[in-house]
């Protein structure tokens, strides 16, 4: 794991251990160095002192070249096991006596070296002048000590340093482990709280506070932030609730309105139906009795009377047609829907055949695309096709080459059926009036009709959940588009 990914606890512990370890190491090194330097100095001083004492005792032996006495004086060195060699040189540099008495040649320098003491070749040597008081120099004393004591001292210092280091590091580790919590615990608590808040979306949790330091301030700030988020969340929820309530209220109102409207509509339809139905009986009487009058009293009426009665009959017949259409419209609204797969192409061909058969005087070229199908009520859809195709047939009545097409196009991923003619067309300004009841753009003298057909068509399309619209221009033909 990379160091930067370590848990904060371990980081703190390691940092504390590193620092204390470094400090301890340097301190121990200083301690050992000081010990060694001091010890070496002490050793040199001790050797120098010993050399001076021996030198003071050796004056007479050197002054009177007494070898036996010199050897005896040097023999005292045996009481210190670290003393490995000694010698007395006469003033002329000759060796008078040595220690040990039969010393190996390499142990004793052949001639005295400059006065002083120094470490050389793993031993400490001292050369001291021998003189009686302030008088002329009588010779030189040489003694040598091994450095075993120094290495012993170094070893002892090192062992003490290592033991102290180990104990101190253990103590430092224990302290670090105990004290790092003061810093890491608030941070860990903060992290835990943050995780809880973000994973459970629970903003009511609060981080525990451990003190008034910067971490305490951070904890306070974090808790304040959580508090604010919680408040805002509550507010949002409240707003959402109010909004939902309002939507429900509005929906309820709308539903109520729609129901009212529905009720009003069906009432109106029922009214229209009954009126239309009830109007047919008197109309039949008017037409029937007018016919009786024309047949039985033709001679008494005269030409003017017969003409008037003919007009009465024509008007009443037109009114009957109108009432029929109105009844049809009402029925379309009231009829029950039976949805099924409908073959629109086949249905259109049947309608066209019927039109051509009943109106042989006006032949129109009908072009019907193959395979047009839709889901819907076949009876109602037949009314739609009948109306639209018949309209095309009707409004192309004054064209030299009348033509009506029934096709489908794909628009916005949906199927749009089109019935297009090259007939009289209409002014687009009145496009929205086309589908109103009794709304006509042409006079009955120009093109006969009741103004109910397109209204009926729109109702059927609407009942199928579809849409119908028209495009056209005067004398440029008209196109009717519908979806189902």
């Amino acid at each position, binding site marked *: 794991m990379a160091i930067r990914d370590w848990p904060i606890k371990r980081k703190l512990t390691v940092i504390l251990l590193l620092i204390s370890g470094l400090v301890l190491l340097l301190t121990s090194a200083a301690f050992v160095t000081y010990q060694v330097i001091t010890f070496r100095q002490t050793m040199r001083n001790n050797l120098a002192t010993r050399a001076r004492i021996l030198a003071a005792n050796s*004056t*007479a032996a050197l*002054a*009177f070249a007494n070898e036996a*006495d010199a050897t005896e004086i040097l023999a005292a060195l045996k009481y210190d096991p670290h003393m490995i060699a000694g010698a007395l040189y006469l003033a002329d540099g*000759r060796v008078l006596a040595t220690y040990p008495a039969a010393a190996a040649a390499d142990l004793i320098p052949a001639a005295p070296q400059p006065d002083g003491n120094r470490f050389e070749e793993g031993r400490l040597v001292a050369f001291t002048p021998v003189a*009686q008081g302030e*008088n002329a*120099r009588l010779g030189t004393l040489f003694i040598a000590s091994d450095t075993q004591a120094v290495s012993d001292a170094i070893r002892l210092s090192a062992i003490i340093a290592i033991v102290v280091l180990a104990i101190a590091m253990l103590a430092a580790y224990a302290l670090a482990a105990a004290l790092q919590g003061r810093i890491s615990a608030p941070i860990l608590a903060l992290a835990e709280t943050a995780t809880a808040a973000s994973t459970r979306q629970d903003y009511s949790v609060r981080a525990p506070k451990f003190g008034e330091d910067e971490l305490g301030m951070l904890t306070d700030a974090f808790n304040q932030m959580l508090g604010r988020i919680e408040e805002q969340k509550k507010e949002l929820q409240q707003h959402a609730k109010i909004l939902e309530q309002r939507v429900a209220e509005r929906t309820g109102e709308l539903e109520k309105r729609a129901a009212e409207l529905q009720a009003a509509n069906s009432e109106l339809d029922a009214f229209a139906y009954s009126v239309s139905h009830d109007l047919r009986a008197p109309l039949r009487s008017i037409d029937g009795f007018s016919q009786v009058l024309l047949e039985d009293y033709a001679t008494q009426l005269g030409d003017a009377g017969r003409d008037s009665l003919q007009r009465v009959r024509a008007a009443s017949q037109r009114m009957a047609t109108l009432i029929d259409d109105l009844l049809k419209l009402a029925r379309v609204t009231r009829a029950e829907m039976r949805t099924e797969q409908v073959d629109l192409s086949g249905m259109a061909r049947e309608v066209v055949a019927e039109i051509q058969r009943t109106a042989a005087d006006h032949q129109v070229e009908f072009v019907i695309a193959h395979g047009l199908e839709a889901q819907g009520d076949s009876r109602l859809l037949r009314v739609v096709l009948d109306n639209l195709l018949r309209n095309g047939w009707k409004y192309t009545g004054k064209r030299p080459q009348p033509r009506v097409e029934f096709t489908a196009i794909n628009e916005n991923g949906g199927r749009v059926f089109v019935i297009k003619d090259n007939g009289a067309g209409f002014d687009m300004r009145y496009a929205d009036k086309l589908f109103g009841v009794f709304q006509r753009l042409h006079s009955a003298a120009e093109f006969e009709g009741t103004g109910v057909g397109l209204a009926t068509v729109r109702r059927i399309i609407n009942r199928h959940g579809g849409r119908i619209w028209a495009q056209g221009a005067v004398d440029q033909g008209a196109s009717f588009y519908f979806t189902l």
Partner: protein
Amino acid sequence: MALLSAVTALMSALLLVQGQRASEHQLKAVFLFNFAQFVEWPAVAAQDPRTPLLIGILGDDPFGPFLDETVRGEHLGLRPIEVRRYSELKDIAGCNILFISRSETERVGPIFAALQHRAILTVSDGEDFAKRGGMIQFVNDKNRIRLRINLEAAQAANVTISSKLLRVAEIVRTPKR
């Protein structure tokens, strides 16, 4: 230091021929000078600290130039060291160390009598010098020069000999008569 090295050189040259007469007397001259460092004389009141320390030779001088060369320029403390040669006993005055030549061996009795109670360190290489009442006697022993000291004689003359010097010497007594 120049002197010291000269002395050293001289000594080493002479020691090489130890056993021969010349080197023997040369060594004795050095010893004579060294005695001054290990012997104390009673203090003389109001004496100038620069009063010379006198080394006298009674009788024939066996040292030739050696003694003069040895003490030349040397001091004991502030005191310079001088060599005096005496032919007559009566000439001796203010002497600290007196070397009595072999030529005077026959006369040691009267000499000791004359010097009695005078703080003079008497030295000689004559036979039985110490036993006869002299203080320090040079004894030749296997090419080495040993010292024989009559401590009583020294004490009688109020001359204090350092224990260090005693260490390297043989102590003898004057036989009781």
